[in-house]
């Protein structure tokens, strides 16, 4: 499909580096699915659909800066929804969001809450100001917070915070955040033998976004993050490149 035109209707500054853009179009997406967001004349980048009609962008480079600076009335192109999305399983679930990783998890939290599920949500950030969607998540379940600098909640890593819970008591864990954090979470789950009860949303360099070009495939399965993912069950990732390396736009391996 060609990109749909989406006009910005609302700009919400969530944190000093993260901005939500609401638009005039709704995409009928599953939680965890993404869109290819086109900043015309510049670049097209994958973004989780944090809202049916919106995305939540962390400023990291050129395209995300342009998005973060958009005003109401500006427009972008969106192709999607793409990818598989999260699958709700069980009654008692945990969501683990690191930084902008909260973006794909917010619609999941809302869906789970609307179905009456018991939600425990662990969110982490570098610093208190950067916590994403704390308030929105609170409306869906009980929220625990960790910050690297201790400015809010637990001082330290999300994984340390997770240790305070009886992880085996959750039917499913849903995870999105920086790769090394996700690797840490996966290790914890694996240590407890419950990695099959987890779903991770991965990040790789996307070109086509539709499963054809191969830019986003991961080793050793050859699975395409854009089409077979971005959500993978934890056990599928154990012997994978996750946390070891990823590839840049040329296809070259970049070691973490």
């Amino acid at each position, binding site marked *: 499909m060609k990109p749909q*035109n989406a006009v910005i209707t609302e700009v919400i500054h969530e944190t000093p580096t993260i901005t939500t853009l609401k638009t005039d179009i709704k995409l009928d997406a599953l939680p965890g699915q993404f869109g290819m967001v086109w900043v015309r004349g510049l670049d097209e980048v994958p973004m989780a659909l944090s809202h049916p009609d919106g995305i939540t962008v962390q400023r990291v480079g050129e395209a995300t800066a342009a998005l973060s600076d958009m005003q109401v009335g500006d427009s972008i192109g969106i192709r999607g929804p793409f990818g598989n999305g999260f699958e709700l399983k069980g009654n008692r679930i945990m969501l683990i969001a690191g930084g902008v990783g909260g973006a794909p998890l917010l619609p999941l939290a809302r869906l789970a809450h609307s179905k009456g599920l018991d939600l425990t949500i662990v969110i982490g950030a570098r610093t208190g100001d950067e916590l994403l969607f704390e308030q929105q998540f609170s409306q869906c379940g009980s929220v625990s917070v960790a910050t690297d600098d201790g400015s809010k909640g637990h001082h330290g890593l999300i994984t340390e915070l997770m240790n305070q819970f009886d992880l085996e008591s959750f039917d499913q864990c849903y995870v999105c955040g920086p790769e090394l954090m996700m690797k840490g979470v996966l290790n914890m789950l694996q240590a407890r033998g419950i990695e099959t009860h987890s779903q991770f949303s991965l990040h790789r360099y996307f070109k086509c976004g539709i499963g054809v070009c*191969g830019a986003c495939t991961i080793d*050793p399965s050859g699975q395409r993050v854009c089409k077979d993912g971005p959500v993978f069950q934890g056990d599928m990732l154990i012997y994978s490149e996750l946390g070891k390396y990823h590839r840049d736009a040329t296809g070259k391996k970049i070691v973490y």
Partner: protein
Amino acid sequence: MVKTDLSVELTGLALENPTILAAGVLGTTGSSLKRMANSGAGAVVTKSIGIEPKVGHPNPTMFKLDCGFLNAMGLPNPAYKEFRGELDIAKEGGVPVIASVFGAHPDEFSEIIAGLDGADAYELNVSCPHAIGYGAVVGTDPVLVEEITRAAKQAASVPVWVKLTPNVTDIVEIGEAARKGGADAVVAVNTVRGMAIDIHSGYPILGNRFGGLSGAAIRPVAVKCVYDLYQALDIPVIGVGGISKWQDAVEMMMAGARAVQIGSAVFDSIDVFNDVTAGLARYLASHSMVLDDIIGLAHRKVGL
């Protein structure tokens, strides 16, 4: 039920079936190539590899149209030195691995081929329509195509295929140049030049503005090219362009293709190789034919 034999000998390589993963599609990594081999491809072609790392064109690099796909990847690749290791992983798939190679002049092709040793064959991409200074520029000049092919043949100890662009006045002229240069087979076709514009803004959609059309839209173009090349050349023709169903493979083979490559159709399903192969087998069985009966059949019907 006896299993229909779909094996085919192609420039000395033994393929279990005549479906091949096309260049640039799910061929960035060894694992991905291996996965496609495991999904039923009779052989796999790598992403086109060059001499220097290239990030390719800015996104959007590919999208689906009502009819077909447009892409302008811009030959992203980590250069042959970095890619060499992927070949070994790809070969674990157990099917022939063909290294697609691009360059600006004969020496580059030779250097890359020497560096990418271990491939079962090389496919010379002289046809990418959207890489400045490469591709189409190279592939539209018969003299250069002949020289590149000759240089590649000298560098390679395995078969060399030459992949042709349809964006020329006379594809047969280029095919003949490849044959004269010693090509073991020609592959037809690469994408057809095309472009789409976002009517909401006026911007060309592809980051590179224009690119290459693939998928169902170009199948009749590819069939015609294969038909003409089969008629003119005495080396095998490998057909590619818009194949997504077994019927498409039958058509391409009737036009003269000894094997077919499948690219864009992995969009619908990576099972496309198994599906096409199964359909081919059913077709042959129900018509009491073997593969050789359908290869070039359209020529025999009209008496050449």
